[in-house]
């Protein structure tokens, strides 16, 4: 499923908003999420999951083309931890056995 399909799915299930409004809403939601992480703040959606930043210290790497050593600076990477409901629903959907 890609963004345009997500927008269509949302549109199918409601009648109040135009497709344009839904497109704008999805765009606005994602922008808010990106800007929150950019500020190094968490996103917490119950039943879905949480997003936070994980720190990665500087490390030595190599330029794969030349083999030359380079220092890769410290950085943060976005991290997602699925919530309980999402974990359970995805697991059942796959026809896999649930642990408890």
């Amino acid at each position, binding site marked *: *499923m890609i963004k345009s399909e997500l927008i269509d799915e949302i549109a199918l299930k409601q009648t109040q908003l135009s497709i344009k409004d839904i497109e704008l809403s999805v765009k606005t939601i994602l922008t808010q999420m990106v800007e929150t*992480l950019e500020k190094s703040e968490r996103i917490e959606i119950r039943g879905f999951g949480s997003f936070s930043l994980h720190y990665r210290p500087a490390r030595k790497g190599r330029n794969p083309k030349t083999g030359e050593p380079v220092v890769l600076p410290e950085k943060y990477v976005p991290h997602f931890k699925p919530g309980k409901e999402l974990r359970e629903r995805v697991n059942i959907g*796959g026809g*896999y056995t649930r642990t408890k």
Partner: protein
Amino acid sequence: MALTKAAIANGLYNELGLNKREAKEMVESFFEEIRLGLEKGEQVKLSGFGNFDLHDKQERPGRNPKTGKEIPISARRVVTFRPGQKLRTRIESYARTNKRK
């Protein structure tokens, strides 16, 4: 302060002028449709943000960390998030512009 569904709905109300109920329902549908896609076994790709991928894991041996007793971890399907290039680039620069807490 963490971003929550209420805060996102508030953003839709302020920025797009959706009424409070529409905004709340929109946020609810947004996350629910992603969950439904994943539940059906579909990968969900949101350009500019990232991909939610599914992985099938086989059963593997595990241990109860409290008792040390061996118990198998059952086969399962799990969700992972892979941030897109655009999101990663925007986040990476955080370390350079802000000091670690």
